[in-house]
């Protein structure tokens, strides 16, 4: 028989008695201001013994609620209003307080997003880890020994010393390792991870994920991995469930779901992300039209219908049942067989202007340094940075914590005054180092879109006022001219006039960011700094904002300094990329070269640490140690303490290499020559 078995409608997940977790038709309701709101609706899935299951969703999807529901730790106004949850065959919802504590101590452990705050700041780390063993009944001294052993297991060097530390003395990565140690100390059957690495740097994230994967197989725990990052899920999980607005829309083996998605939402989501080296020259990212429904809204028919290009009347009136497609795949859609052919909502082609002639320099940063003095310690946030921005290009700026990329952007804008000796030139003319000393021409030329629109927009002002003020001060318009310009700006970011009277609290994240963009363009700037403009947004919204930025760049010939920790987004958007580490530029070059090589060893490691959805794992370059503190940078080349390609002979420890042009348009700061690097990195380059 070659034809696949007919899909079974109204299928239940197949459960076997050894399942670590069974979630069966669960509803979670919150009581908000007197009304019941359903945050999770009829969700069923199972996690088998030793299996790793990923739960993917954007904000409002209900994924965190589910996690807390499993531990029975919902806030006071939340409850599991229907269905059942069992862990290792025991019904969690029926448990009394004693049994629940037993469950938390021995069977289920949780690791969540912010490692720093998860630990009690007033108690030493060792004591907190030992507590887990004490709860299991061990005597205090034995608990301490086991705690130290556990810390060694999570690859913390010198665990004895770390045990005596307080949490604020640990770096983010170290703290998360401690939390993982605490979670695994009880040898749980089920480990729940809720966005465990979202707050960490890329290289640190890779380390922690590898650690979790390694330990999991050793301890045979099942894992429920919750994240909005599909790539991380693809890397870590065997099976995945996709949550949308509180409902499970698709489930199956991770590889299959990501390669051949069968729900229009999953299809749309995957198209939003720049995959496989996609660049803006190749075309726009696709977006998902419409808005996420607010949690708990009433719905009739399929929850995704209002945003789905395949939706018909049946979809809008009747909720599709969960259909079994065989091979462990389930989907909740009437049109699942057409999903792969989902029409694009955004046209692909983009008329990118051909850049002719030599690049015209718009901004020149010369020997920019910045030293902070806090409590007697000198911290060099920026060391001698020379950088040039060309007209109409996007320069991506990447780096981890302590790299100085945010400091550099703020110094360029004048929000931070750099050390004497630094120079900033705009169109060939030097500008005042302090923003307060700049004239209107200079101010309107250089603008910024901030990361967090809640912080960047004055929450007491209306949209009209927010944009209008920028137009008044930067463009110098008033009266009718100003009114028209405000409308023009609002429409250029694809919003409507009716939004003008609203305040930021009445807008979604994506809309708020559009207002921020409109405001930045108020005075027809030539250079716009984009400081992580999409990091605070959902994936589906991110694509729309990125497309908008590209369109505006084409229309206005604007230069972007694009800062992001998300390397795929930087790779998509940037023409050139600059890589920073501990306040120094390590490499500057075209996006292709920086990504594919030959490139700086740090860049190499950074690029290899990014998980991809595409399933072909690049050769992982593991970096040892933590990112050094900016207060005491290593001597010689600041990267040598972690560099896997450190040269014999000690030159890397003694002398800091200068930033030199190793090829036309490609600068690098490394003692290893570019030809040598080309040779060393050749096999790795093929995998990108």
């Amino acid at each position, binding site marked *: 028989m070659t034809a696949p078995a007919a899909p079974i409608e109204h299928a239940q997940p197949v459960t076997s008695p050894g399942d670590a977790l069974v979630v069966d038709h669960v509803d979670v309701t919150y009581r908000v201001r007197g009304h019941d709101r359903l945050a999770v609706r009829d969700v069923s899935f199972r996690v088998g013994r030793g299996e790793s299951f990923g739960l993917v969703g954007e904000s409002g999807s209900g994924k965190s609620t589910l996690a807390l529901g499993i531990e029975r730790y919902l806030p006071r106004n939340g409850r599991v209003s229907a269905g059942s949850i069992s862990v290792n065959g025991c019904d969690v919802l029926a448990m009394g307080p004693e049994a629940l504590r*037993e469950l938390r*101590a021995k069977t289920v452990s949780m690791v969540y997003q*912010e490692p720093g705050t998860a630990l009690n700041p007033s108690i030493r780390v060792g004591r907190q880890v030992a507590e887990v063993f004490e709860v299991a009944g061990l005597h205090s001294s034995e608990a301490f020994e086991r705690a130290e052993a556990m810390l060694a297991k999570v690859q913390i060097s010198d665990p004895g010393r770390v045990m005596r*530390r307080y949490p*604020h003395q640990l770096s983010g990565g170290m703290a998360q390792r401690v939390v993982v140690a605490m979670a695994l100390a*009880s040898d749980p059957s089920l480990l729940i991870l809720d966005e465990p690495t979202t707050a960490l740097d890329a290289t640190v994230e890779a380390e922690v994920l590898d650690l979790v994967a390694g330990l999991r197989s050793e301890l045979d725990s099942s894992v429920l991995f919750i994240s909005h990052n599909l790539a991380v899920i693809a890397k870590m999980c065997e099976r995945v469930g996709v949550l949308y607005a509180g409902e499970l829309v698709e489930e199956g083996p991770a590889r299959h779901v990501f390669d051949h998605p069968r729900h229009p939402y999953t299809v749309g989501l995957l198209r939003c992300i720049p995959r496989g080296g996609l660049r803006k020259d190749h075309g726009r990212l696709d977006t998902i039209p419409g808005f996420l429904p607010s949690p708990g809204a009433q719905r009739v028919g399929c929850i995704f219908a209002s945003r789905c290009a395949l939706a018909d009347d049946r979809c809008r009136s009747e909720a599709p049942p969960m259909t079994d497609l065989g091979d462990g795949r389930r989907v909740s859609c009437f049109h699942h067989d057409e999903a792969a052919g989902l029409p694009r909502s955004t046209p692909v082609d983009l008329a990118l202007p051909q850049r002719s002639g030599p690049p015209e320099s718009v901004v020149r940063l010369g020997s920019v340094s910045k030293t902070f003095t806090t409590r007697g310690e000198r911290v060099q946030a920026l060391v001698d940075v020379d950088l040039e921005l060309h007209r109409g290009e996007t320069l991506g700026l990447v780096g981890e914590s302590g790299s100085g990329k945010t400091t550099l952007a703020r110094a360029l804008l004048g929000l931070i005054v750099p050390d004497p000796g630094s120079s900033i030139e705009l169109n060939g003319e030097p500008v005042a180092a302090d923003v307060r000393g700049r004239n209107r021409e200079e101010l309107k030329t250089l603008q910024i879109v901030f990361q967090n629109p809640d912080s960047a927009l004055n929450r007491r002002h209306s949209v009209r006022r927010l944009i209008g003020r920028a137009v008044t001060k930067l463009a110098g318009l008033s009266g009718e001219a100003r009114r028209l310009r405000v409308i023009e700006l609002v429409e250029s970011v694809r919003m409507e006039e009716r939004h003008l009277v609203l305040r930021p609290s009445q807008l979604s994240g994506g809309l708020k960011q559009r207002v921020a963009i409109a405001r930045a363009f108020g005075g027809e700037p030539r250079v716009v700094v984009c400081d992580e403009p999409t990091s605070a947004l959902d994936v589906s919204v991110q694509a729309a904002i990125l497309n908008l930025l590209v369109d505006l760049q084409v229309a206005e010939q604007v230069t972007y300094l694009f800062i992001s920790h998300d390397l795929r987004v930087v790779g998509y958007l940037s023409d050139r990329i600059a890589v920073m580490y501990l306040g120094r530029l390590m490499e500057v070059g075209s996006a292709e070269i920086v990504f594919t090589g030959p490139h700086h060893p740090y860049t190499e490691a950074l690029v290899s640490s990014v998980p991809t959805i595409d399933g072909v794992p690049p050769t992982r370059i593991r970096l040892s140690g933590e990112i050094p503190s900016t207060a005491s940078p290593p001597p010689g080349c600041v990267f040598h303490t972690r560099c896997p390609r450190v040269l014999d002979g000690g030159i890397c420890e003694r002398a800091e290499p200068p930033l030199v042009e190793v090829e036309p348009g490609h600068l690098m700061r490394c003692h290893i020559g570019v030809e040598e690097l080309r040779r060393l990195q050749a096999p790795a380059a093929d995998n990108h």
Partner: protein
Amino acid sequence: MAAYLLKRVGLSIVTLFLLSIVVFYAGQVLPGDPGRFILGPLAAHSAVLTLDRQLGVERPLVDQYWTWISGFVHGNMGTSYEYQAPVEPYITSAAVQSLKLASVAFVIVVPLSILGGVVAALKAGGPIDRIISIGGLSGSTLPEFVSGIILLEIFAVAFHVLPATATSPMGSSVVTQLDHLILPAIPLVLVLFGYVSRMARAGTIEALASDYARTAALKGLRRSVVIRRHVLRNALLPTITVIATQMGYLIGGLVVVETLFNYQGIGSLVLGAVNSKDFPMLEAGVLLIGVVYMLATLLADISYSLLNPRIRLGGGE
């Protein structure tokens, strides 16, 4: 941490210095002619001038200030206009008396308000919480003489359970002295309770809502253990600082309570000095009060930095 403490002590000294200048100015310069005050409106002009010269009124202000402050530091606090005697013994005995009363109030209010705040936080949003919060707030804004009067009428007059004055007869035992001090201490307790319990409540709520409380609960720890071991020590840390700053209200309250209950403490002494325009007495009393307050805040800061690992140990690796 040593650097931090040194800085704090330095700042306190600066503030104290500024305070002494303000007090000196208010006392010496504002009221006008000290000679006239002492001798009265009917005295001969020449006699006033002679006295003024004796008192050193003609000298430059800075000189006068220096004499005064250096004298003060050595224990010579000037001569009272009213009693024509050194100020020092009056101030010292009054200070001791006030210390007794303040200690009684302190010993009662600190445990009570911390307990009240923590209980209110644990039952937040419920009726007990509202009662403690509103009651506390009302108590703290109720003038001491009002609560004092009401208490007097009930306990001393109507039911004769407690004495109506705070001053016990000479040579009374400790128990009798305490007996006299209970009633006057209560208005002070009421005033302090509100603010301290509010801080304890806020600190406890914040600690309960923290990530680390969640971690502790999800480890499988019993609720009481979570509260005792994890929540309380972080919740009560800020409350320590608050207790010290309440010294100001406590001392202000002493003025009223001592007047109402006929107690010769520093509060009634200062008030008497204000009314009789006895400036040396006034300056000495006010400066002493300022010193006590600064010491209290300094002590609080020191204990806070000792107890908070972030400050005690500084930054990370």
